[in-house]
């Protein structure tokens, strides 16, 4: 019960402060991975792959998956409801009372400050994820996992290339999975 309450609290917080949609939830999920035994950083990486390859908004998929990992089906439903609750309240208030909300000068100033910060937050999250996914820690030292590093670099380069950059994320994950199996990562 306590666990369910904590899960809802964390996703409520995420829904209230994750500004900029799906990817903005990742720094919060990473904080959960560090603080609670619900899921590890590697499992968070799996969650991102699954959320991006299945239908539905990424943020919702992440909440359902994280909730399911923590407390089963009930956890998935609770986490998702907790995530969307702040949105529902805030949007209804804005729709009802605040005509021209997004044109307000202070609102725009607030979001001009938050947007670059979210980029910094996600960059920090990605770096932590790279440390866990592409390196192994041995006696306090980081040892690169060469195969994963090369695969990551190749996909990143292909993502900049005109002909392949529009491919669906699921295509990349299938490719990465096949490479992982063939070369026994």
């Amino acid at each position, binding site marked *: 019960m306590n666990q369910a309450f904590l899960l809802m609290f964390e996703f409520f917080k995420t829904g209230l402060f994750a500004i900029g949609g799906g990817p903005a939830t990742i720094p919060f999920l990473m904080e959960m991975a560090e603080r609670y035994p619900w899921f590890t950083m590697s499992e968070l990486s799996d969650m991102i792959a699954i959320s991006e390859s299945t239908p539905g*908004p990424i943020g*919702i998929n992440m909440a359902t998956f994280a909730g399911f990992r923590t407390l089963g089906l009930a956890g998935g439903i609770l986490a998702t409801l907790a995530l969307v609750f702040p*949105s529902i309240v805030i*949007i*209804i208030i804005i729709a009802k009372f605040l005509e021209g909300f997004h044109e307000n000068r202070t609102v725009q100033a*607030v979001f001009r400050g938050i947007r670059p910060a979210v980029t910094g937050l996600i960059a920090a999250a990605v770096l932590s994820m790279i440390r866990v996914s592409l390196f192994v820690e041995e006696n306090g030292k980081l040892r690169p996992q060469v195969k994963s590093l090369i*695969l990551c*670099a190749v996909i990143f380069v292909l993502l900049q290339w005109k002909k392949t950059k529009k491919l669906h994320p699921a295509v990349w994950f299938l490719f990465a999975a096949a490479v992982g199996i063939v070369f026994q990562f």
Partner: protein
Amino acid sequence: MNELWNLYAAFFRIGILTFGGGLTMLPLLKYELVEKRHWVTEETLLDCYAIGQCTPGIIAVNTATFVGYKRKGIPGGIVATLGMASPSIVIITVVALFLQALIEYPAVQYALMGIRGGVCALMLNTVYTLGKKSLINPACVAICAAAFVLTFFTPVPTVLVIVCAAVAGVILDRVTGGADK
């Protein structure tokens, strides 16, 4: 009641047809809500998108709540959002169950190791694209760098970073008189 059911069904459909969320779903929303059902005008949809991007939460959910509310008040907002979230709950639960059953096999573990490399590449790309869009002046670069250093090197909570960035945005606006738009 019938109208609420229609809202639920429409957003359930949108939820199931959306891959990725956020900006990628705008064409789909336009087709389903403006062209097919005439529930909102294109201007309202774009307005609501702009609001969705500068309010907390998942953009898809914000849009669903907004359109639902415009149609049928508070129950409409809630029902539309639940419709949007329902497919995710079903699909993700099934995937999670499968993954739990398959994780023992070595091939699955190799595949996951490969996928983790792929996730890093896609996430790096997200940061790169976001950076190009959001780091438009020195002040933005400074805020971004500060947020990065604070979260990566210190245990400062993410929420605090967001709140400080909001304050920084307002201060910058007052100092420059909104000139850096």
